[in-house]
């Protein structure tokens, strides 16, 4: 019955490694996403040259157009030192073969890169919009008080973007805990060097369609839901997402 499914899932040898993999990825990704997106949005917003500003927003957004599995296919080429246009960078990290590149230790960083590349552009545009929403009077007052760009960003812009940042964190957390396409495609492309049970969603998939155990699969999905909902609630309340101004 119900509880047995959870017991079985907890006892599965693949479960805890998958939890660790996903947790590590989500931590690295959320931190880097938040810092870099806010930083890039502030930079774009600070560009006073009109065409340069719109051109850079367009450039940030392009990778997002190539979504999901097709974007991973492109990364397969980037990550294989034998064919990669950036093989020099890979070699500089001591990575001579595809197998070395996709070793377990490197995967959280690789998935962060892929997710950032595909998803950050959209968030930069949204943050840019949020920055535009800050009243001109507030910005001017800061300038008159003698605040430079850094101080303005730290004391005025970032606090006023708080809701948007927590919104981004919630949405990215939901996407991140459901990591599936990237490890799945990498697993097939690496002929199993990236294990087929790397992430929790992959494990749920294997339970359902390799073991024909839909109950175990549902148990994993429920666990994911509970954890994601709990963390989202934290972001929502800490970020004041539902507070009225």
């Amino acid at each position, binding site marked *: 019955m119900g509880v047995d499914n959870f017991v079985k899932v907890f006892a599965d040898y693949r479960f805890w490694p998958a939890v660790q993999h996903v947790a590590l990825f989500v931590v690295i990704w959320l931190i880097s996403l938040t810092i870099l997106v806010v930083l890039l949005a502030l930079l774009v917003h600070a560009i006073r040259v009109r065409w340069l500003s719109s051109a850079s927003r367009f450039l940030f957004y392009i990778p997002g157009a190539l979504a999901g599995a097709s974007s991973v296919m492109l990364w397969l080429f980037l990550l294989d030192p034998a064919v990669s246009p950036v093989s020099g960078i890979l070699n500089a990290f001591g990575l001579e073969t595809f197998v070395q590149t996709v070793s377990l230790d490197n995967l959280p960083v690789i998935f962060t890169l892929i997710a950032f590349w595909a998803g950050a552009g959209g968030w930069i545009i949204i943050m840019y919009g949020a920055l535009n929403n800050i009243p001109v009077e507030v910005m001017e007052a800061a300038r008159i008080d003698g605040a430079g760009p850094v101080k303005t960003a730290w004391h005025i812009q970032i606090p006023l973007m708080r809701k948007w940042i927590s919104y981004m964190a919630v949405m990215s957390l939901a996407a991140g805990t459901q990591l599936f396409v990237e490890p799945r495609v990498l697993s097939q492309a690496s*002929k199993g060097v990236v294990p*087929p049970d790397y992430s929790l969603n992959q494990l749920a998939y294997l339970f359902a369609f390799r073991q024909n155990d839909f109950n175990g699969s549902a148990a994993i999905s429920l666990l994911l839901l509970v954890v994601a909902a709990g963390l989202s609630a934290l972001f929502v309340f800490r970020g004041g997402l539902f507070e009225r101004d």
Partner: protein
Amino acid sequence: MAAQHRRPLARILATATAAVAIGALAGCAGGSGEVNSDYGFATAEQTADSTITVWVDAAREPIAKAFEEANPDVPISIETYDGNAGGSGSFQTKVALFDQSGEGWPDVVFSTQTNDASWAAKETNGVQAFAAPLNKGYFSDDFLNGFTDGANDPMTVDGTVYGLRNDLAPVVLWYNKPLLDQFGYDIPTTWEEYEALGVKLAAEHPGYILGSIGDSFVGTYVYYWGAQAPIFQLDGNDFSSDFEDDHSVAMTDMLDSMSANGTLVQDSVFSAPFVENYSDKIVAMPGPAWYAGALFQNPDSINATAGEFGAADPLYWEGEDKVTGNVGGGVWYASSHSKNLAAVETFLEFATSSDESAALNSGLPAYDSAASTWLDAQAESNFFAGDFKSAVSTAAASVWGGWGFPSFSPETAYAAVVVPALAEGKTIADVVPDWHEQILNEAQVQGYTVK
């Protein structure tokens, strides 16, 4: 605000409930059905001229295309997929999805793995087994008897045949004749001579190689199976894996020492770097019969010249049985849900037994008459040095019978544990405990009793 938030949730719940209910209904629908005595299983309603969907991997696509050309009156839709390569499980996972929806199954599936009958021959969650029984009235005994003895054994469950073997894939020793002559070496006949040749080669001609261990099918099926290492054995529902056995230990030691002296490399034989760096550096290399078409005669791979490579009898341990390993050998399955079983039969007979498909087969066909056609064609072309026909026939008759066919592949554990460890500079012996544990874990998850 709160009320507005609640409404979508209620809608999602309702949709989810409906979806579950539909799923349950679909699940029930698949399970019923009377056994059709002409076929020996519950058939779907037959519709003559309905299109059959055929799933093949890229290497088998030409065979399906040839069928389409030769039989313009049979409507066929050819779809390519990964062929389940590397034990990816895509065949099973896709069929499980169709089982859920209760429709959409392909009519014919080609799989590069030989162990799919372990799940495809079983009813799952109330849905009829995907693989159609083939010897209970569907295919004639005359036709089925035309297969090489034992070729369909991996797909036979309690006397019922669920799949037709495409090709036999016994491991032979491939060698480069001009290089052996130039260096003055003899063709090794035993694993001991092979290892000794490695020591000599590394000292006298560094850079030349005797094979690769970067592919999970090579590590497992070529070396450990060929060494009679009992690391993957199935007896009923009991799974066992013994890395302490003398055969296992000897093979691990041999691979580690040859890897250390550089005569075994880590690049996959299908990778661009392997082709680029080692095409003219392979002195000898144990490998399946299908290397013939897949590597040596493949313009995109090694693309050897005639007379360069030859096949010799497989390697064995000195003083022990002359046995060898086996690397897959694809299997054709007919869907028990097909609406056009007659067309499926025509297709499968063409794919396995016709001379046209034999000509397109990269390896030794499992159907006797097609096998002779293939071997004769290879011998006539004089592409391979030495007595190719005799070596391949000898190997086909001496595959070691101790290797098991459970519902999971030995390749996944090798790929996940051994390949990355080698890339990190570790030896196989270093990771044998992890590898062993991974194999046993996989067995246990699949429901086997681990001994």
